[in-house]
């Protein structure tokens, strides 16, 4: 990759790191272990959106393990916590999986406003920088001006867009997009879909229909079905991941808006429960603000 990109990624990561580290880093680990330290760690994990269940589990583990290893000192406890979190998240280290069919199709889904369209734009830019030819499919035909929003992104990154009118059948848009990409030998089709709450069954069915349409072209596609989670959302993300996974075989997660103060700790229970690889994190609204997910850095940042 080009140097400027690397710099940009570093900068973004630092920003995230600073934000993520806040609550746990104010904890004073430089003391000997007692009940109040465990309580403070518990509190901090809860504040980071790790959730009650996972937090209780982690605290239990820390208590048992520190006894077993005869750990007395807070710094060592912190190390132990770090190990544990990295261990959990390592199962979910993930990279974008492209198989080199022309086209590879990447399907984006998620609840309303989570950042799908923006992530499509950012990923398109990233792929273009790697020399790929990218087509955007405007399959959100429902929300007001969703098509126009994607058009702006297509312009920005210099990608072709395939669109129908507002209100059109999303599966038909996808068909046209993949079909034309195939005819022209494009590398990748990114499919932007309408936001939908996981509780709405008919909308989940619509996603399955879109997926089937893609599979008509190749059984290997979509090579990625990416669930875009909003990093500011709390425990509800677990439910979202469960339901979307069940309905559409999600192959990866993108978590956005980690440039704010939200900690994204909900990734821990999600990863524990569902083992879905986490592929990218979104750290801003600009075209470069998409980074690969790295468990070590994430945990490092979380603990400060």
């Amino acid at each position: 990759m080009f140097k400027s990109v690397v710099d940009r990624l570093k900068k973004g990561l630092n920003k995230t790191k600073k934000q993520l580290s806040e609550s746990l880093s104010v904890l004073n680990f430089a003391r000997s272990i007692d009940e109040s330290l465990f309580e403070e760690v518990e509190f901090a994990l809860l504040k980071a959106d790790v959730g009650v269940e996972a937090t209780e589990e982690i605290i239990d583990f820390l208590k048992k393990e520190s006894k077993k290893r005869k750990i007395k000192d807070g710094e060592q406890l912190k190390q132990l916590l770090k190990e544990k979190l990295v261990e959990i998240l390592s199962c979910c280290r993930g990279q974008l999986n492209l198989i080199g069919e022309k086209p590879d199709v990447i399907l984006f889904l998620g609840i309303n406003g989570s950042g799908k369209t923006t992530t499509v734009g950012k990923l398109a830019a990233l792929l273009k920088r790697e020399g790929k030819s990218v087509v955007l499919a405007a399959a959100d035909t429902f929300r007001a001006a969703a098509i126009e929003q994607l058009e702006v992104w297509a312009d920005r990154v210099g990608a072709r867009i395939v669109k129908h009118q507002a209100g059109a059948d999303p599966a038909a848009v996808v068909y046209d997009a993949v079909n034309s990409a195939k005819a022209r030998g494009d590398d990748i089709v990114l499919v932007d879909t309408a936001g939908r709450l996981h509780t709405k069954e008919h909308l989940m069915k619509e996603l399955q229909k879109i997926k089937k349409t893609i599979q008509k072209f190749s059984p290997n596609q979509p090579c990625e079905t990416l669930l875009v989670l909003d990093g500011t959302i709390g425990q509800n993300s677990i439910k979202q991941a469960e339901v979307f996974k069940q309905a559409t075989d999600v192959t990866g997660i993108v978590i956005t808006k980690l440039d704010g103060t939200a900690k994204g700790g909900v990734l821990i229970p999600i990863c524990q429960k569902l083992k879905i690889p986490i592929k990218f994190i979104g750290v801003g609204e600009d075209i470069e603000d998409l980074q690969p997910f790295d468990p070590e850095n994430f945990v490092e940042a979380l603990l400060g």
Partner: protein
Amino acid sequence: MFDLLTEKFSSVVEKLKRAKKLDEKTVDEALKDIRRALLEADVNVEVVQQFILDIKQKLVGQEVIKGLNAGETVIKLIYDELLNILGEAEPLTKAEKPPTIIMLVGLQGTGKTTTAGKLANYLKSKGFTVGVASTDVRRPAAAKQLCTLAQTIDVPCFVDENEKDALKLTEKVINQAKNAGLSYLILDTAGRLHIDEELMDELVKIKEKVHPHEILYVADSMQGQEAIETAKEYHDRVGLTGVILTKVDGDAKGGIALSVRKVLGVPIKFVGVGEKISDFEPFYPDRLAQRILGLGDIQSLIEKMEAAIDEDKAKKMAERVMNAEFTLEDLKEQLQMIKNLGPLENVLKMIPGIGSKIKDLKVDEKQFVKIEAIINSMTPEEREKPHIINGSRKKRIARGSGTTIMDVNKLLKQHKEMKKMMKKMKKSGKMKLPFNMPNLPF
């Protein structure tokens, strides 16, 4: 909305109802369960600690309230405390000299633009002249999005897509809108992070230019632990006058609803309950408190029915429901009405004692068609007195409606259970504490 919280609270309530004495163990256990329920619902940790402390303090030395048993006394206290946390409902301000300017602010993607359309629609339906204006120069196609919504409800939309400076844009649209003879003007702003100095500055400047009468913070009801810090920062910077919670049509756990009033002292004024422009309601704290405790939201249900349905019919129906004279004909009519009410799950959840029990209920609207077909194949007498439907009648009905005898049996059983439930509802009266309900049909 807020199902999980309701579910958890209901189980605490069930346990408490069985408690005869208010001993320390009973109370501690209940409080522990409640703490957990609140945390799982993303209620801010600090708010949770405080809530538990407050209840505990009140319980020490608490006499059992007359007419209630021990468990019910605790429930009553929790209910009061919830109400205390949620505060009073407050209406929108109205400016002495129109237009009343309402500015919507908040994080990215929470639903500001959509809400601008919804609020305009709501005010318009109350008979006011309303306009919307955009100050968002950042989000791609923001102006287009707002005006598309405005167009569907036929209200004026003030934008200038060529103006790329937010402050200049603000000035332009405000000047245009002020001369349009509106009673309300709704101002959409770009989403921004509370820690984004530059953009928060911009927001302050927009505010100073516009002097809005209301600054409403549009918050995603699914937000996590940072929700309150974020809202607080907004409040400190621009001075919020209210909150609108969005996306409560999902299975949001509603933590922010319980935290925001307590921490900011700012009322929740509306909730967004869907993607459609009409999916929008005023917020009533008492109803939410009742819902959380599984007491249902009969009031919202009735209002919703009234809005969607011919008023007379609805009243008659409510009466019949209350008197448990619910015939199959009524059921059919009700299904037709319900179709106008929007997603059935939402409606069912408002019924006391049911909301918490149908967490995983999926309403297949196709079932409706089947039920209607079956009822249509019945004689008026059969609809009035389902008990006369014997084997041969069932056969005829199944054939006539293109269904099976099993389907007919199922419907009859469901109807019977509904009726039973309504009888119980009637017996228990409105403010009585929760009770066991048979599982809802469908």
